[in-house]
């Protein structure tokens, strides 16, 4: 399945232990991540790598990701990225569980 970004997809909240993810179509090739995190110093690199990994598994490319993290665990980050992508490709009501 081709993951074509058709609109901005958002997921997650600004609550403690959550992460807010916004996914937009990128104007350049590749994935660009803007991360703000309350635990940036300790976990910034780890959060970025989970986001990249999740996008890779979903075969998503050429996007801009804006992430505001409030100390989310990896499982939360993965889930939020997945749902933001599904919304961005307008498939949130037509989930292909096989790719998740």
């Amino acid at each position, binding site marked *: 399945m081709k993951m074509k970004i058709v609109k901005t997809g958002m997921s997650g909240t600004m609550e*403690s*232990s959550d992460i807010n993810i916004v996914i937009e179509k990128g104007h350049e090739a590749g994935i660009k991540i803007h991360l703000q995190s*309350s*635990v940036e*110093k*300790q*976990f*910034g*690199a*780890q959060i970025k790598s989970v986001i990249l990994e999740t996008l890779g598994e979903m075969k998503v490319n050429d996007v801009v990701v804006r992430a505001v993290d*409030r*100390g*989310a*665990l*990896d499982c939360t980050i993965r889930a939020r990225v997945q749902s933001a992508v599904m919304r961005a490709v307008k498939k949130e009501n037509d989930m292909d569980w096989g790719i998740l």
Partner: protein
Amino acid sequence: MTNSVEGRIPDSIKGYEEIRNYLEPFEKGPTGRKAGPLLKQVKPGENKVLENIEEAIIKSGLKDGMTISFHHHFRNGDYVTNMVMNKIAEMGFKNISIAPSSLTTVHEVLLTHVESGVITNIYTSGVRGKLAEAISNGIMENPVVIRSHGGRGRAIEAGEIKIDIAFLGVPSSDEYGNASGRGSKTICGSLGYARVDAEYADTVVLVTDDLVAYPNFPASISQTKVDYVVKVDSIGDVKGIASGATRYTKNPKELLIAQNACKVIVNSGYFKNGFSFQTGSGGSSLAVTRFLKEEMKSKGVKAAFALGGITKPMVELHEEGFIDNLFDTQTFDIDSCQSIIRNPNHHEIDACMYANPHNKGCIANKLDVVILSALEIDTDFNVNVITGSDGVIRGASGGHSDTAAASSLSIIVAPLVRGRIPTVVDRVNTVITPGETVDVLVTERGIAINPRRTDLIERLKDKGLPITTVEELSNMAKDIVGKPKTIQYTDKIVAVVEYRDGSIIDVIRQVK
């Protein structure tokens, strides 16, 4: 000999001619005589009441390079420290050392005076907010000195902190300087920290918004110690000084921790008629008191005293006859402030009586059980309550190391992780309380007993408690949050952590 803080202290620190490393809790004793303030005389008919802060600063003879002190009994509602420092800055003084008993978020505006060179040294229990961040980022040339409440009292008595002028906000005072923690506008309860300053500062200036008729008795600070009294419009924000009704936590994690801590106490061997305890003001800590009350009721056990940091749950137990005496250095909420006025056995004590290790016996020495919190605790049981997991200063030493060392049983209550931040770690960023004085760690995922306490391990086994090891707890935390990257520091030392006896137990470096 190796101890739990081996390798943390550098060979030289700016401002220290020689460094006395921490070795073990009671290794460094006192020498010499107590320091004393100048002898002074106020003659009959002389007046102590001054027009304003500026006149007090002039009369007190403030000069560049002097040390002045404040107290933090008004907590986040304090106006006095900022008011006095703003005036001192306006009058053009430089190179002032400040020695507050602690600093809270309300004091972060002092940053402007640090930037402009008005304040060049800070000796305190804690720092918070923007000022703390700036210090951690290396704004000050001289390292801040962090002391515990008992350690500060000791340093003042030993002359290591020489206070030239103490500016002490008081809820009420008469014209001769008899001051009290109850006033018509504000009420702060105990003035336990301020009493030490009043006793040892060369010049004592009281700042009040309730100047009452002579004599204002009973007085926490007496007229024989006081040079000047200044009346101002307001000394503080009532809401910030004493928090309202303390609400019991409903957080199931905190309740589980509290319940387990209570079981540890009950089975520790110290829970018997005439025992004593101290709890902090955090959610789990307050809840321990609640669970303990049920045990005291059902087993017919009464406490001889509670120490602290007095909060409403302790006052309730006192008034219901479960605790005979409350010893109070600092009164946290409005109910407790009223209790100290109302209840004859709710006693005000000063910081030296509370926890000074170098006198003929502080009350903490008689303490059976203390419940303490932690930002971080490591597998050597060292506790950090001063720096966050990002290495930035954000807390206070308080009475943590004092009561941990002096009590018979010290229990740390803490969640295993907070959000993505692990509480149980391999190595804490900063040691405030050395592991050899910490006996038990209670988390929601299990209880770890310090291996040094073989007696406790024996007494607490087969009691249905979820006993594990601190290493196991640290691994559990790692499984949940992953392994955090080690914080990067520069070589610059931004703060020195003194142990309660005056030895150096750790340093805090500038964050990158």
